[in-house]
């Protein structure tokens, strides 16, 4: 099956466990995909949720696997949603992570605070093994550093967030009670949706600047373009596309040109003229 036939995806949710993913699957009415074997994947309009399994390696692998499948998308937004341990915070408190540290290699990552939010922010330490040796200044989890390490290969830091709900603290442990974990996440589904909407607005700003894949293919079919000419063609077409020129009319005009050089010269003339007004 071709990647393009899988449908459009602009937002990817990455959860370690089904019980963490369930509130998202229910809220957005995602449907399980039966085509995938490596990971459980749930799809909906413009989004999917991948269940990675526990641990930072599993999370990183899931991100890389899904990003490779949607590399043709102009930009991908990502949310890592799951539960975390905390020393004193109340069970059920939702945090947006502003610093993710990997306990094994000491590497720190800083998700960009690009979406305005009223949610409290916290640092999080990603561990390789479960621990109840809580620290006051940070949450504990087992996936966030793998998620961000991998997602940063495919998208800019502004287009990803890690959201964590406290499931355990010094006094109480939800532990392996899956239904309780789902309830803790479900209680925040509206602010979680708000965060997703903010990310999607940013993602749209980036994607809107890109050339739609079908237009690009049409352009390339007009003549043989060298790599240098392709670069120039992309710059010119992105400009004119974002200046709201009628792309169909332009393509008809270009179809009369016989060579790549003539096509580029025509687009340059149009661009130069248009840009003189600033």
């Amino acid at each position: 099956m071709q990647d393009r036939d899988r449908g459009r995806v602009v937002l990817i949710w990455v959860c370690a466990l089904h019980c963490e993913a369930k509130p998202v699957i229910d809220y957005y009415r995602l449907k399980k995909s039966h085509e995938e074997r490596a990971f459980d994947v749930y799809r909906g309009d413009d989004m999917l949720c991948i269940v990675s399994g526990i641990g930072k390696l599993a999370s990183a692998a899931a991100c890389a696997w899904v990003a490779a499948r949607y590399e043709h998308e102009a930009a991908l937004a990502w949310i890592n949603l799951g539960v975390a341990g905390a020393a004193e915070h109340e069970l059920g408190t939702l945090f947006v992570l502003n610093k993710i540290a990997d306990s094994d290699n000491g590497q720190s990552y800083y998700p960009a605070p690009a979406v305005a939010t009223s949610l409290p922010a916290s640092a999080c330490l990603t561990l390789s093994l479960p621990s109840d040796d809580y620290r006051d200044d940070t949450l504990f989890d087992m996936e966030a550093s793998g998620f961000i390490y991998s997602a940063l290969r495919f998208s800019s830091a502004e287009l990803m967030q890690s959201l964590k709900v406290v499931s355990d603290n010094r006094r109480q442990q939800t532990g392996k009670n899956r239904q309780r974990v789902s309830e803790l996440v479900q209680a925040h589904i509206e602010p979680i949706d708000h965060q997703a909407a903010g990310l999607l607005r940013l993602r749209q700003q980036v994607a809107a600047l890109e050339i739609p894949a079908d237009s690009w293919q049409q352009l390339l079919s007009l003549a043989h373009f060298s790599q240098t000419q392709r670069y120039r063609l992309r710059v010119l077409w992105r400009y004119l596309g974002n200046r709201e020129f009628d792309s169909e009319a332009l393509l008809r005009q270009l179809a009369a040109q016989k060579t790549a050089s003539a096509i580029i010269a025509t687009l340059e003339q149009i661009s130069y003229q248009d840009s003189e007004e600033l």
Partner: protein
Amino acid sequence: MVSCVYIESAIRDHPRAAQLLQRLRKLPLVEIDHYGEVFNPRAQNFRLQKQNPAIIIARKNKGQVLAAPEGYGLGGEHNYYFSHMLNCLYDCRYCFLQGMYQSAHQVLFVNYEDFGEQIRQTAKNHADKPVWFYSGYDCDSLANEPMTRFTEYFIPLVKSIDNAWMELRTKSTQVRSMLQLEPSSKIVTAFSFSDATSHARLEHGVPSIEKRVNAMSRLIEAGWPVGLRFDPVVYHRNYQSAFVDLLEQIFTRIDARQLHSVSLGSFRLTRDHFRSISRLYPEEPLFAQNMSLDNGIISYPLDREREMIDFCEAQLMNHIPVQAYHPCEWHG
């Protein structure tokens, strides 16, 4: 709107850092080891970050004072620059900072004393010759003045070094702190201006031309030397009439005989910066204009550039004495 504050753990107790934290206390605070962890990673989108940049409070550990690039300055023999900040409050589309840095966050360095020591040492290395120190290369010198209190430290410092002079380059109107100090002929505040069309289309967040002319006028009245910088001049269909109007607006308020210096240069960027910025802003007409590559620099074709500079120079000479004029020479 500022989104959050990052601070290097090692300088949390520095008095200037503590002052900044007090001022920014309502914002989320994140501790980091080194500003490069946040500022330098490649997977960042300058354009998105610029909408809600963060402030990074940091220490500059080395290279506080650097030799100015070739052609930068006012013709003096020894030219250096220093940056107490990285990045700018404003969002000028022609600015090279968008192409130079991965991040739009503003880095505020607080270890002014280390900068001061290097300024003293650099001046000492040139004994009795005049040495110029330029501020405002990687940032706007005055735009964040209420926060950085830059002038309070650096103006008395430069005044106290016999062979040191300083230029503060700015598009800001934040001159209140300077007006509280004793003026000095060794500190030149250089105001950058573009014509009204370029200002409206390209200088996002920059105070109006009128407000900046007012700020200049107040400094002159108080006895401070000021300069004018028309750099970059940007081509557009009506650039000639717009430039004439700009000069009219400035020189009806400012007595040209009181100007320390005036410089003029056309729009130009290194090829790498041009490519990075035009990728970020593909819809921007400035980057779709007819340009040419000369020695690694992208600028207007020579005939257009010559026409623009000749015209603007001729107009300037109707207002200023020739000895105040310093063209920006950048061709190899």
